């Protein structure tokens, strides 16, 4: 039991929180801007590398400098929107998807150019896990990540539920046409979407980097599970994305547990496939997701 919780469930929650944060941004972009943003993964990577540089420069803990990195990431997101997405705002949606596909590689190449492709670390050294109640074993950095992730999700909840712009975002995700008819400032909502999405993407990336390491493909590797989480939760449903992320993270970690017999249920080399299978299953069975999002 202890093994199950400490080596499978908790890592699952950790991974799930990371997926959740990435998925919120994706689902908002999907719901409000109406397209699948393939560049989101590499925006996460960008946030990580900003953080890395800040850590090098200030010698502070990555989570301390993260807010600054978030600001930088958001600025980049807004710039990208202005230069590459806004001109296509009224074009068929597929053009935006193609553009984002191109941006995915452009952002990655910029990162690789400036920072190189060697593995790096934002939090060097191995942390010894702490033991609680003689039962739970979890390292301090994991506790920090989970706490921060929950704090961010709470902040998003507050924004969406109690602020005017947050409600306008939910309204626009429901129906951009009606939002326009109602007089809602749609460009402002779009900007807010990039701000929230960019900040959360940075956080998701940094948490993953703190847990593992820094490398240029890390965001792209998160992209598929994050899309899967958004679809699972229901496209355009931020709370759905949170749930979806946790489900997928936990499922992924659980897939290598020895449910039957001695060996892992699924060859750990195929962990990435778990998210994919869940996504396909959702698309087949209930494309609107768990929380009845959009199907288009």
């Amino acid at each position, binding site marked *: 039991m202890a093994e199950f919780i400490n080596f499978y469930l908790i890592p699952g929650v950790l991974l799930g929180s990371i997926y959740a944060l990435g998925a919120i941004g994706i689902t908002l972009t999907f719901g409000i801007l109406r397209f699948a943003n393939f560049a989101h993964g590499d925006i996460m990577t960008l946030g990580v590398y900003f953080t890395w540089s800040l850590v090098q420069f200030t010698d502070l803990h990555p989570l301390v400098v993260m807010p600054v990195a978030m600001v930088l990431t958001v600025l980049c997101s807004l710039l990208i929107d202005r230069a590459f997405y806004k001109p296509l705002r009224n074009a068929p949606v597929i053009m935006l998807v193609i553009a984002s596909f191109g941006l995915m590689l452009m952002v990655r190449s910029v990162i690789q150019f400036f920072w190189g492709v060697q593995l790096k670390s934002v939090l060097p050294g191995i942390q010894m896990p702490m033991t609680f109640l003689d039962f739970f074993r979890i390292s301090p950095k994991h506790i920090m990540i989970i706490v921060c992730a929950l704090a961010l999700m709470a902040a998003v909840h507050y924004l969406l539920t109690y602020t*005017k712009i947050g*409600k*306008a975002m*939910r*309204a626009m*995700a*429901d*129906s951009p*046409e*009606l*939002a*326009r*008819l*109602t*007089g*809602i*400032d*749609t460009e402002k909502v779009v900007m807010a979407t990039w701000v929230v999405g960019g900040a959360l993407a940075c956080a998701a990336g940094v948490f993953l980097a703190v847990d593992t390491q820094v490398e240029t493909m890390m965001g792209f590797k998160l992209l598929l599970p994050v899309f899967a989480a958004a679809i699972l939760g229901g496209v355009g*449903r931020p709370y759905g994305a949170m749930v979806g992320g946790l489900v997928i993270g936990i499922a992924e970690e659980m897939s290598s547990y020895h449910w039957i017999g001695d060996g892992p249920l699924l060859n750990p080399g195929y962990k990435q496939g778990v998210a994919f299978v869940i996504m396909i299953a959702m698309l087949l069975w209930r494309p609107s997701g768990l929380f009845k999002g959009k199907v288009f």
Partner: protein
Amino acid sequence: MSVLELNSVVGGYGDTQILHGVSLRVDPGEIVVIIGPNGAGKSTAMKAVFGLLRLTGGQVLLDGTDITNTPPEQVVRKGVCYVPQTSNIFPSLTVQENLEMGAYVRDDDFTPRMREIYELFPPLAEKRRQTAGTLSGGQRQMVAMGKAMMLEPKILLLDEPSAGLSPKFRGEIFSIVKTINATGTPILMVEQNAKQALNIASRGYVLVDGKNVFEGTGRELIDDPEVAEMFLGGGKAAAPNGGKNG
């Protein structure tokens, strides 16, 4: 001066022209109804007021000011509120939040106004924290109208408010429309349920194939034998030609 005037408006979508010179007006305090067969351009005429399609001819005047082809987000700020036929509420927002969104362009305190809306629509008051998408059809229409009313508009445009509602609710909606009008807001309404609509209307216009065909007071149109034959059989509009999308 009329609150709203359409003078010989011409326009449509892309290459298809739908309106071929439609004229109508709404005077202060009136309920004006547009009826006609499917494909007549009734909803299109309304959308033209709101800047949702490109007019290539004619004028739209609001209180005498030309607002032809003004984009929707600006038309709303000038005091015209539009309730579309479908997708007229934000389903994942609560009733209260829907009303708040309705007041989006207002900078002032709109709590008194919200209270008024709740008085106008008592069922909404009890369900204010309920997600709008879970309400019944009739209640949703109330939310849609209440939302539009939050801005205290100069004129309210309603596109087939009774569409898809059971007969019981239809009656309720029309009495709500009357009540709203009684508070001083003129209303322009497109309706398929011609008879019930004309019953509460000050005046009405009949459009066929994007052109004006008949015009008169509500009573006049109900009593007119030609109109009655074409449109008032059993409260349903019988299309003289095959129905096309309206």
